[in-house]
């Protein structure tokens, strides 16, 4: 590989093909930027499937009784929707796309530590996602257990559980390997002078995320393996008829899946922490506090899994511990919010597209987080657990948090990635429609939940009709916004006007190299001498 060092410094990574043709210049490339884009395209494709399933559910829920599908289809729809969204989209989401693309650049490296492993992770991701999606079509019908695969139902049902579970298991490996790669990259490949405390926030959040990926994913791996063993060999780990304990399954599942929600949100917070200083032309407020809170979330987030099981009959001691820790883990998130808002104070703010996404992120994230507090309180949780309230909470924080940050990051780094700028007026139009649709879609769910409408109900009592109509209409508004956004980006990537090197006036390393970046990012590894986010 070292022989073709003699490349033209001006050639961008998009032009540099390594002598490969057609699709091979993508699927055989070990360039972290191309791999980032591979992830972007694959994630976007699954996202279309996922959201379409979501919209189908909303159409079903527009009126009581069978509207467009029956119980079995609905159950399968929310299961596959949940599995796709969680395991295929928001968990890999920001780390795999923007982490891959930006991490090496932001820390001044030419690539990640193990480029081949990086490409392998993508292949594993594709293999896993194909398994998951194949469960839709093959054999006994799509799985119908919910994305949580709760035992004992998950090994009694006759539907395609195995491919879905196996797919989730395989995806876990992809996640682990990406995390491992990033950790070694951050530990070993920072440019000279880039000390830990000069590193931008986005790499820091990736660092925290990577640890969670590394340490939590194996637990769900082994749990899913046990479910597979259960289905094939009838071992009886979680089968009450053989003495197994279904609650233990829930413990193991959430030991992973709670930290997983922080896998989703940490890089999102990182992206927001990049966007806000850039558009406020101001050093990020409380850099150290943001770093410390990132690590605190990663660490404490490991010990609160039980808040998903408050009504499962755990001991009072466990409930006490989990509830109090749940409240404590909210503090670092609060700290971040305060620091972001303070960064805006006395800044010089340009409310451009990425900033609009970031500001709306803060808003919906607060709603999601604060309803999380309501869920975390024992007494209230008993009432709203497993109702539409929970569905509202996690769409606000997963879609509103991670999703908004994803779109924000996409609009922020788009000119760097493609070297072209999108149409800002259309982007703003799309954003406002999307935002309004979002609130209309998920807002009523809180009310429904408080009124007692259980989740995973394809049919409901007529009492709940009103809010459901509003919610379904919101979904349609959102679809409109989404289509505008996607078409705008899609067109601009091909034919938008050429973007400058630093269109937003950012200070981090990615803004000091050409757009799009050359194959090896830097002609010469930079030396860092001043703190990050310095505007002077």
């Amino acid at each position: 590989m070292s022989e073709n060092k003699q490349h033209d410094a001006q050639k961008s990574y998009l032009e540099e093909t390594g002598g490969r043709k057609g699709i091979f210049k993508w699927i055989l490339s070990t360039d972290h930027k191309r791999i980032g884009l591979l992830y972007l395209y694959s994630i976007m494709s699954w996202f279309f499937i996922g959201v379409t399933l979501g919209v189908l559910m909303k159409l079903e829920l527009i009126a009581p009784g069978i509207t467009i599908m029956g119980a079995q289809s609905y159950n399968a729809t929310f299961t596959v929707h949940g599995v796709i969204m969680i395991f295929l989209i928001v968990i890999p989401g920001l780390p795999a796309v923007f982490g891959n693309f930006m991490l090496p650049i932001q820390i001044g490296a030419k690539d990640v530590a193990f480029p081949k492993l990086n490409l392998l992770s993508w292949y594993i991701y594709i293999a896993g996602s194909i398994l998951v999606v194949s469960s839709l079509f093959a054999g006994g019908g799509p799985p119908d257990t919910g994305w949580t695969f709760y035992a004992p139902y998950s090994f009694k049902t006759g539907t395609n559980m195995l491919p879905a579970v196996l797919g989730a298991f395989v995806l876990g490996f992809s996640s682990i390997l990406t995390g491992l790669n990033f950790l070694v990259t951050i530990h070993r490949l920072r440019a000279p002078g880039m000390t830990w405390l000069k590193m931008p926030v986005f790499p820091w959040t990736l660092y925290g995320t990577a640890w969670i990926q590394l340490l939590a994913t194996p637990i769900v791996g082994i749990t899913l393996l046990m479910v597979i063993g259960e289905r094939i060999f009838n071992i009886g780990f979680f089968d009450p008829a053989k003495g197994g304990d279904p609650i233990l399954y829930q413990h193991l599942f959430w030991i992973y899946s709670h930290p997983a929600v922080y896998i989703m949100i940490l890089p999102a917070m990182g992206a927001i922490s990049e966007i806000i200083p850039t558009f406020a032309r101001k050093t990020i407020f409380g850099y150290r506090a943001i770093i410390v809170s990132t690590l605190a979330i990663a660490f404490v987030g490991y010990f609160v899994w039980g808040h998903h099981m408050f009504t499962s009959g755990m001991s009072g001691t466990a409930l006490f511990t989990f509830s109090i820790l749940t409240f404590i883990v909210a503090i670092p998130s609060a700290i971040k919010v305060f620091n972001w808002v303070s960064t805006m104070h006395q800044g010089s703010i340009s409310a451009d597209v990425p900033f609009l996404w970031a500001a709306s992120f803060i808003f919906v994230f607060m709603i999601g987080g604060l309803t999380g507090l309501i869920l975390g309180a024992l007494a209230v949780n008993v009432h709203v657990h497993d109702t539409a309230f929970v569905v509202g909470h996690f769409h606000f924080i997963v879609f509103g948090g991670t999703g908004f940050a994803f779109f924000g990051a996409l609009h922020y780094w788009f000119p760097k990635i493609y070297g072209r700028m999108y149409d800002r007026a259309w982007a703003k139009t799309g954003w406002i429609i999307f935002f309004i649709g979002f609130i209309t879609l998920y807002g009523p769910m809180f009310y429904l939940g408080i009124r007692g409408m259980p989740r995973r109900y394809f049919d409901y009592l007529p009492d709940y009709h009103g809010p459901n109509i509003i919610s379904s209409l919101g979904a349609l508004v959102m679809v409109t916004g989404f289509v505008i956004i996607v078409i705008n980006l899609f067109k601009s990537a091909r034919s938008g006007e050429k973007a400058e090197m630093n269109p937003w006036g950012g200070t981090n390393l990615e803004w000091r190299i050409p757009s799009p970046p050359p194959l090896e990012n830097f002609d010469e590894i930079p030396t860092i001498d001043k703190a990050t986010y310095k505007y002077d």
Partner: protein
Amino acid sequence: MAEEKHHITSYKTYLLVLVALIIFTLLSVTITQIELSRWATVAALLIAGIKSTFVLLVFMHLKFDLRIFRVMVGLIISLLVVVIFITMLDFLFR
């Protein structure tokens, strides 16, 4: 970065550790075969802990390696212990 020097552990150290490990194994077998009731498990786990410390420090070179590796291993093992502990909070007090 390839320039930092490697510590070379002598064969003798390895052999000594191996002998110690085997002795501990036999010890744990004997202890648990005599009637110590519930302390047997504690003793067996304690010995397993000692054995794994040996393996980690000498066989896996943690003793001679960068400090960061030791710190990481320590943290990860405590993490696992805490997770087991919190899970047991449920079952012990149910």
